[in-house]
């Protein structure tokens, strides 16, 4: 089952009344959507508010989602429209957008010229998470580091990684899992100490 099919399955669960399935979609896409919206909106608190609003709008619109496009594409469109409405409502002009294609070849309007603006606290936390993950990845055994890098950075499937690394798919699955667990073990103390803060 592909990622797109998994998303569709989660959407169908929500459409059958399982609200909690939507939590998994929020967890999966919130940071990506936030990154997209930060191209339009400067203030990090506003980015968070608009991201929240976009997800709520997406939830309300789910009965009309038919799976003709990927869920994330549909979500991103809602996010962009929500951001534009926010800017207009706050007396700011929507930025001029440059077209960009997503993984499915669909064009989304993005502005790549707007820098991110964070609060100092959020920025520090961001840097700490990045540093912890980078150090944990560097500390991995080479086979685990290669497997997770090919997956997360290059987007290769398990089958493709197996071909690159010359090992069975089951080994790829195990290596990626072990890499994630090793990194998560380093991250958890950091996340636990900031439970009442954003992370």
């Amino acid at each position, binding site marked *: *089952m592909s990622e797109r099919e998994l998303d569709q399955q989660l959407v169908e669960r929500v459409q059958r009344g399982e609200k909690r399935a939507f939590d998994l979609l929020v967890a999966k896409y919130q940071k990506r959507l936030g990154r997209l919206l930060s191209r339009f909106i400067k203030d990090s608190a506003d980015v968070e508010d608009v991201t929240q609003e976009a997800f*709520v709008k997406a939830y309300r619109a789910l009965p009309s989602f038919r799976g003709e496009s990927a869920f994330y594409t549909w979500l991103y469109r809602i996010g962009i429209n929500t951001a534009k409405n926010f800017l207009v409502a706050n007396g700011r002009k929507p930025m001029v957008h440059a077209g960009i294609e997503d993984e499915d070849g669909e064009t989304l309007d993005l502005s790549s010229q707007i820098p991110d603006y964070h609060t100092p606290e959020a920025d520090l936390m961001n840097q700490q998470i990045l540093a912890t993950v980078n150090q944990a990845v560097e500390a991995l055994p080479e086979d685990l580091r290669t497997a997770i890098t090919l997956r997360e950075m290059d987007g290769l499937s398990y089958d493709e990684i197996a071909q690159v690394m010359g090992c069975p798919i089951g080994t790829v699955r195990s290596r990626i899992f072990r890499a994630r667990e090793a990194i998560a073990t380093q991250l958890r103390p950091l996340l636990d100490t900031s439970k009442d803060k954003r992370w």
Partner: protein
Amino acid sequence: MMNEKISALMDGELSPNEVDDVSDALLAEQSLSACWSEYHLIGEAMRRNGQLTLDVREKVSVQLRDEPTVLSPRAPLRQRPVRRYAAMAATVAFAAAVGWVGFGQDPASQVVVAQAVPASQDVFAPASGVEAPYLAAHQEAAGGGLVRVSMAAGAKVAH
């Protein structure tokens, strides 16, 4: 190990027959959904996403508590073939129970259908031993002839 399955699930690499079980576990166990979030955070950090501290899960969850539960009027796509053939099976079952059959004149096909779809069988599942494509072809061959049915005792209606 469930965490390993979650890792495979998020990559879209879990076998279809495992997806439901793992999804169920994810929705039921807070620790597993935390694992799901952590693994996604790792990927975003490796891709140097600048929004790593953004977390709207709690706020969205709280807001959705007050929202009406959405229900799609359209049945999920993967259920449609079963429902379509279940409706055909129901039609055939009623016909077999009552004995009024307006299908084609081939006695062999009538016998096969009647044997394969007992009236008492739950018509929400395709009849065992009868391939759905056979039913579809048989229905077409009937040429839309009238089928008069009535509710036999114990028969169920497929919607």
